[in-house]
């Protein structure tokens, strides 16, 4: 129960840059908000593993976004369908459909396109916001938050001690 909290606190207090932590949340947003078995998620996975993105935060944020996406699926469908059926965009979609990447990207499924169109702004616009959050936490809120009973409780717990020892 406390493990995820300790992991988040640990990540926030680590020496990793705010950009690495924010990028983790942004990539998790794309992976979580769009259908998992999509071609673009292979690219997300590649980026997360190849670039120094905080994996702990990525793994924790992904299920949160995935849960949230369940509620948004009808919205994804409506957005995706209305864009896919735009007469002006038909030619562009048709030529994309007729190449292998387009065919395997599943973009012609309204939910895939709709979810990607929501996930990308969330990830891109969210990146500076998440970075600002981490910076503010470290510079302003950390000391205050450390005084909260719950944080003291977590830090005093055996899970925290064990986690500290394990992660060195």
């Amino acid at each position, binding site marked *: 129960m406390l493990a995820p909290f300790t992991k988040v606190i640990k990540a926030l207090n680590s020496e990793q840059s705010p950009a690495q932590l924010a990028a983790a949340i942004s990539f998790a947003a794309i992976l979580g908000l769009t259908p998992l078995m999509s071609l673009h998620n292979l690219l997300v*996975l590649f980026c997360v*593993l190849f*670039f*120094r993105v905080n994996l702990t935060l990525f793994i924790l944020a992904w299920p949160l976004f995935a849960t949230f996406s*369940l509620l948004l699926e009808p919205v994804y*469908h409506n957005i995706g369908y209305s864009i896919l*059926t735009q007469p002006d965009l*038909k030619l562009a979609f048709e030529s994309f*459909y007729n190449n292998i990447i387009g065919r395997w990207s599943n973009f*012609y499924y309204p939910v895939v396109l709709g979810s990607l169109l929501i996930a990308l702004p969330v990830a891109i616009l969210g990146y500076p916001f998440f970075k600002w959050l981490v910076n503010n936490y470290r510079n302003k809120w950390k000391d205050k938050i450390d005084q909260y009973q719950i944080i003291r409780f977590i830090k005093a717990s055996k899970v925290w001690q064990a986690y500290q020892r394990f992660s060195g």
Partner: protein
Amino acid sequence: MKIFRWWGLLTFFGITCLIALGSYFYIPVLVKSSIEGLGSEVLGAKVEVKRIDLTLSPIGLTLNGLTGANPDEPMKNLFDVEQVKVALDFESLLWKKVVIEDLNLVGIKTGTERKTSGELEEGRLTEQVASKVVEMSVPEISKEDIKTMVENADLETSKRIETFKQTQQNVEQQWNTDLDKQSSQDRIDALQAEYNRLSDRLKQDKLNLIKDKKDWKQLNRNVKEEKNRISGLSSKLKQDKANLKSLYEGVKQGPSDDLEHLMSEIGLSNGVEGMVDQYIGPQYTQWVMQGLEYAKQFKPSDSQTTSEEEPEETLEIGQPVRFGDKHTGADFLIRSMLISGSESNEQGVNTDLSGEGFDIGYLPWLTGKPAKINFKMDGSKKASFQINSAWKNKNEMMTDLKANIDQWPVSNMAFLKSKEGQWQLTSGIFMADLKGTLTLEKIDLMADLFIQKPVLTAPEKLPDWQIALVNKINQQNQIKFTLKASGKISSPKVSVKSDIEKLFKQAIGDKIKQKSEQIKLQLKQMIEQKIGNLEQLNNFEQKLDSYQAQLKDKDKLLEGLLGKIKI
């Protein structure tokens, strides 16, 4: 700070390889479960595959030991295919299209024994329809039931009597008033008096004729006027008489209408003919019912287009929006299919199976060629099937069906279901000749089906007449069914005529006739008892005739008067 995580690259490739490897092992499992699940639903009995092998070069699948249980005999297989080899076109797979270059079904056998039952525990949807059993029993009705039934019935005759009596009363009242009117008699008396006065004056002096000329003329006019009035009344009286007569005829017809209605409530409206329709109509023959249910699944092309072009909201990835595809062709296509096999019956006589199919695809209008399937059996069983289905576009389809079964020994085939249980065709030789055309809108199908030397086993504890029916069927050398289906595909007109109808009539005829007549007689008596004697209503004519006589007398009087008028 280092941007790249080189071990991450290795991990990524490791994960990718794991996904590929997982797919390699998972695809056969997925195909196996799909074939077993969908096949079982279509067949109505277990479809199983022993093992599926995936080959990468050339890319394809091999299904070993594909079996489908017989829904009527779960301990036997309907088909048992040794091996199904599927060769796929790799380039089409890159475009997400499954194109089967060659499909070979080798070693097909039918009727092989199973070790476990092939029955589906929960059944399938279509079976629920077929399980609607026919209640084959002659109604048992006691005299008391008939009495209560008639007492509680809202008899049409009673209503008609009420209407008749009401009308008769109104008519009589009206005529009594009309004919008893003093004014009418007064007018006639006045005319008579005037005539007497003028006649007396004429007797006194002939010249009075000239003097009274005006009065004589006036009298003439008045008499004619009165005569016309009486003539009008006479016509009205005739009309009233005709109306009452028609109502009376309705009343007389009432008991037989009521009798027919009550007989139909019992289920004996048309006697034996009705019983034939009720029990051997297409609605109670299982395979016709199943055929009808399948036919109802077809929808006119309009609704198909709508469902495809306007995808419903879905919580998965949804219906795809289709774009112009340069890599034309169906999403699923079998370019060539070969079927071969043989089976031997208990006497050791072989039947060779062979078949071929071309351009069988989904969506069919994208294949560009008509789909063809030819299938032949030769040996102890002789049969051939031909299907040719051409799709010009998604709204235009024309399918020709031809099937010919020369000789097909059948055993333990489900024949009919009654509340006592299954009527089983223990043995017989089935023959059929079927021809038909099918479009998305219309069906035109004609089939002659024969069962030679039928041996029928019926459930125990059948009523006498049903046992007689079974015996009569078993005595026949051949039973013929003629099936016709035509009209709209969504609501086709289906008719089934068979020799069984005649046998049915023979089997139940005497018993039903006797019973039906007995019930009819009892009902008739009860109805007559309830409505009473109708003959007493017939006196309306006498009264109306007396009115007619009164009018006639007056008319005669006026006629006489008119003859005597001098001017």
